């Protein structure tokens, strides 16, 4: 691949139930502990599933200090702004921009993009209309008449799925190409893939890519439970006794730059995004193909784009959401691509919960950490590999990393499958 097309990672940021630094989240995973705990956002003692990996309430407002802004954005937006802000900060690009004359700085900003994978709307936001509907006693004429005294005039602005794109632009001066991807679980992975594609196509010199979501709310938990998608206590990917997924929340972000952009200030390079693939299985909202056809195609597209062979992959961060169908088909997909002996496989949702639109960027940032440390973290909740899936190279114990290239798999509603290929690169550009 020519150097003009290299997409480098120069900063990372993350927040989730396991912490609000990349280091603390990584350490929790390595220690074999999970952030899953009883839900605190409401009293869920009576609930069939009352656990999730939540960001503690005490940390929420430390994430974004601007109090006025806190009131204008959602919980998920707080996460996204924080994580992306951390990635931008770590990249050190603001200092470089500060040395530029005004026209060059304006050009710099116009060439800086923002890509978000956003969870979109919530059920809880509609509850702000409950007092009005109660007061109107079902009469829509009264509902319309009393609207302006009963509901916050800024209600809509807090619900905008693209708030993180907007406020990142305002806070950090980024004014270039942008996208807010609302493609459920794969939103974060697609934000990274689209940001990289924009840099390759010369639409921008640098872009921050963030996935953020806050899916832990009663209605969502109830529906997932009714669909048989939630485990009661623990998320055990690929395990014989796996019973479903468990929600997490948060955000993770990467600062992506072209080689020229990173070299302009000799930025430290943490890693390199080599390729991506995105396909749908056309199976509708909930179904997945049992043979993993879509995921296998997505991985092959990513390998093709990167120009690397399956043998070069040193670890796979599986989607591993702990549901029967997804895990089994994911194993099938990995066998299709890698044959009977895939590289070591791990996944992180057992520890961080499934943060939906944020899940893939959390996985990406943790995969980068794993590559840097040379270790494939164990899946601590794995008691016994499902015999129907064996042999499959997952382990409750840490495994050595043999090659410095990681594949990250992200799957979601709509038969969506996205694969990202990542290489560690601790060098100064």
């Amino acid at each position: 691949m020519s150097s003009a097309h290299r997409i480098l990672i120069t900063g990372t940021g993350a927040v989730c139930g396991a912490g609000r630094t990349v280091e603390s989240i990584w350490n929790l995973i390595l220690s074999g502990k999970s952030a899953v705990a009883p839900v605190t956002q409401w009293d869920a003692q009576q609930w069939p599933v009352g656990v999730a990996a939540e960001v503690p309430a005490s940390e929420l407002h430390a994430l974004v200090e601007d109090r006025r802004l806190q009131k204008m954005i959602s919980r998920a937006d707080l996460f996204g702004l924080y994580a992306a802000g951390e990635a931008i900060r770590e990249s050190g690009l603001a200092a470089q921009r500060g040395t530029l004359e005004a026209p060059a700085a304006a050009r710099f900003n116009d060439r800086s993009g923002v890509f978000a994978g956003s969870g979109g709307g919530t059920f809880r936001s509609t509850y702000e209309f409950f007092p009005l509907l109660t007061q109107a006693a079902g009469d829509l004429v009264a509902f319309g008449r009393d609207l302006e005294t009963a509901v916050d005039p800024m209600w809509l602005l807090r619900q905008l799925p693209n708030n993180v794109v907007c406020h990142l632009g305002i806070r950090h001066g980024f004014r270039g190409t942008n996208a807010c991807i609302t493609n459920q679980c794969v939103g974060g992975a697609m934000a990274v893939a689209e940001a990289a594609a924009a840099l390759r196509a010369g639409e921008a010199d640098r872009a921050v890519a963030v996935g953020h979501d806050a899916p832990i709310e009663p209605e969502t938990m109830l529906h997932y439970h009714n669909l048989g998608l939630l485990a009661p206590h623990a998320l055990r990917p690929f395990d014989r006794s796996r019973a479903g997924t468990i929600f997490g929340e948060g955000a993770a972000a990467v600062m992506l730059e072209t080689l020229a952009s990173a070299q302009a200030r000799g930025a430290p390079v943490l890693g390199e995004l080599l390729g991506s693939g995105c396909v749908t299985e056309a199976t509708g909202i909930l179904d997945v193909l049992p043979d993993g056809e879509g995921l296998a195609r997505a991985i092959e597209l990513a390998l093709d784009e990167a120009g690397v062979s399956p043998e070069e992959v040193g670890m796979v961060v599986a989607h591993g959401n702990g549901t029967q169908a997804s895990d089994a088909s994911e194993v099938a997909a990995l066998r299709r691509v890698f044959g009977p002996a895939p590289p070591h496989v791990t996944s992180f949702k057992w520890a961080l919960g499934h943060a939906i639109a944020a899940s893939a960027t959390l996985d990406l940032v943790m995969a980068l950490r794993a590559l840097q440390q040379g270790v494939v973290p164990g899946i601590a909740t794995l008691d016994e590999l499902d015999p129907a899936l064996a042999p499959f190279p997952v382990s409750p114990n840490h495994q050595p990393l043999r090659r410095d290239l990681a594949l990250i798999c992200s799957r979601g509603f709509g038969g969506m499958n996205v694969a990202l290929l990542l290489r560690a690169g601790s060098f100064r550009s």
Partner: protein
Amino acid sequence: MKARRRVAITGIGMVTPVGLDAPTTWVNLVAGKSGVDEIRGFDARGFPTRIGAEVKNFDPAHVIRDRKLLKFGSRAHGFALVAAEEAMKDAGLRPAPMTAARWGCAVGAGMMGVSFGEFQKVHAAAGADGEFHPDDLLDPEFPADPVGFCRSQTNAGLALLTRHFGIRGYATAVHTACASGGQAVGTALKVMRRGHADFMLAGGYDSMLNPIGLSAFCLLGALSVDNDAPTRASRPFDATRNGFVLGEGAGFLVLEDWSAARARGARIYAELAGDGNSLSSYRITDSHPSGDGPIQAMGQALADASMAPGDIDYVNAHGTSTLMNDRSECAALRVVLGDHIGRVAVSSTKSCMGHLIAAAGAVEVAVCALGIHHSIAPVNANLTKFDPACDVAIVRDQSRPLRIRGALSNSLGFGGSNSCLALRHPGEVAA
């Protein structure tokens, strides 16, 4: 540098307040017929704004035979399926087993997943006193509806479209408020250029004409309150404009490789020639008075299309009919078009069909393609009082015959995302 792949628009489908298909929509837009009326879908008499641009007499079952699929779809998803079906038929092209993986889909999806009916059910079960009580959802009597939940998912429309048409390649849903539809079409162009798909179904769909959606915009004071003159309420660039009119609908395009389209003898409406995409980074709901933000998007679209202002004959403006947008957009047009400002025809078709929010950008790209195809610049209806701040060559009074060599379609969203797409007449494409 390798020559960039050229992309053709070969299929168009629309469901709008002025027509249930593209031909009807086009004829009514050209005639300047308004789709705005009193809201009839629910009792809006108590709201500050009681008018809207509703899609009338819509029944997706006339077009989409798959009843089960429709059950999983909302009203907006129905618009999407019908408009997409029309676009496929119009193109004479559909995914087949051999091509399915090379078909992609990019949609601008609306932000409202929860229907008012579902909301009322939750209110009755768990919020009747005005407060939300989570435990009440566990009552066995609570009619938790898994289908309603599926419908509410942000990518539900995308899932239904890809399933219905058997699209198995790249798929994405985007939302940048009013720029969503434009950004979806722009994404589709980029996906084709980078070779990730050979065919794209691209478009947008939305329906916020329900009590909560209407409330949301009423609260912001963004809507026209001309309840007694609905057909005159949306009057972009008029000195007396006082807000936008909320609409609903869908627009879809079939995009394919230019040479492949030529080889199969397809009718090509236009080349989708360039995409511009910028972030204003100014305020959430306001645009910069100078036009900063949209200026960059339009400039990029022109550059991306290898076009100059002199190549542009028509601009389909975002033109919402709010005081701020129209003034700021005209400022941007003056900067971008320069000496050509007095010559380039500008209109906002929102004057007839209202603001289709996440669908608007896609529908308006389709309008540009039809304008090129028919050599007509559609009218900007309801412009009677000149606003010096909007001193651009608005297509006033009636539509105008005009050979459109190149066109721009602007979509500028809440949150500051700006999308501009450039289209080129097939006759202007060098052989």
